[in-house]
């Protein structure tokens, strides 16, 4: 898969799946803007890994939930690099809890980052991609968007929202050769899932046919494919990367 000459933006690229995606895209030749909201040290580590893989990139700080900050930073990136070819909406957070006791701000924050953040970034790249007559947008959804999960009503709603966004935008931008897809990772071994107890882990492993947790790189490989020229006839799809947990 060759991404030479392409410019990519990966939101939430400092850790977990976003880091693996950033490194994969850069290793394939893309210039990768690694977005992060707070953890500068982690973003720098991602850049170090990109350098190690022989790739190029930069750290780009903004909160995707902040419309002004997101559009400003992305417009500036497009101005500096002259183009934008790949957007990976990966920035996400979870604030789990049973709905019956869920606080308003825990609902809002998760929707604002995971769903509205993707809207802000899509909007900021759409015009440039339309003018270029091409591009790739990949939204990182989740298995819980499809299967639901007790304690994650906010998170699963945001991730299901991303699927609706993906399909509508795929239809809107198809006439310009822009492909919009989603990946729906299952249980991936990252900071976000490290909060699971040993017991919870054992239980969920029993439900995964491939009987292991996924790695960030399992997801990154699929994102790399969707970002490539080879995936030019795939749009509006949701690709599960879950070891068979949900079929």
């Amino acid at each position, binding site marked *: 898969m060759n991404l030479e000459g392409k410019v990519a933006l990966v939101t939430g690229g400092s850790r977990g799946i976003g880091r693996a995606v950033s490194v994969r895209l850069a290793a394939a030749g893309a210039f990768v803007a690694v977005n992060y909201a707070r953890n500068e040290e982690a973003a720098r580590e991602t850049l170090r890994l990109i350098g190690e893989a022989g790739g190029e990139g930069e750290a780009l700080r903004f909160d995707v939930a902040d419309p002004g900050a997101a559009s400003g930073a992305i417009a500036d990136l497009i101005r500096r690099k002259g183009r934008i070819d790949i957007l990976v909406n990966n920035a996400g957070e979870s604030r789990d809890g049973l709905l019956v006791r869920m606080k308003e701000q825990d609902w809002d924050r998760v929707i604002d980052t995971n769903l509205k953040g993707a809207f802000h970034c899509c909007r900021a790249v759409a*015009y440039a991609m*339309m*003018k270029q007559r091409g591009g790739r947008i990949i939204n990182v959804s989740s298995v819980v968007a499809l299967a639901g999960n007790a304690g994650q009503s906010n998170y699963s709603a945001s991730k299901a929202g991303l699927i609706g966004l993906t399909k509508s935008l795929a239809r*809107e*931008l198809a*006439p*310009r050769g822009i492909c919009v897809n989603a990946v729906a990772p299952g249980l991936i071994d990252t900071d976000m899932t490290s909060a699971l107890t040993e017991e919870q882990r054992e239980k969920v492993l029993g439900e995964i046919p491939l009987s292991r947790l996924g790695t960030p790189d399992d997801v990154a490989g699929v994102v790399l494919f969707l970002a490539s020229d080879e995936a030019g006839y795939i749009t509006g799809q949701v690709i599960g990367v879950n070891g068979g947990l949900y079929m």
Partner: protein
Amino acid sequence: MSIEEKVIEIIVEQLDVTREECVPEAAFIEDLGADSLDLVELIMAMEENFGIEISDEELQKIRTIQDAINYIKKKKGLAA
């Protein structure tokens, strides 16, 4: 370059049509073959070039090249 000339230049570039096709009464959709995405691109290009903002409501009223020229002139404070 006059506003008329600039508008036509933008249309020629965005819609991939010839200058000859760009008569004032030409309608973007019916005569120049624009689809909804073309229109959005065209409007955004005009906003960028003329430093104006065109609301969706006003957009509905812009059907022909002359409509666009009149609208931009009005926005820029010039008599239509």
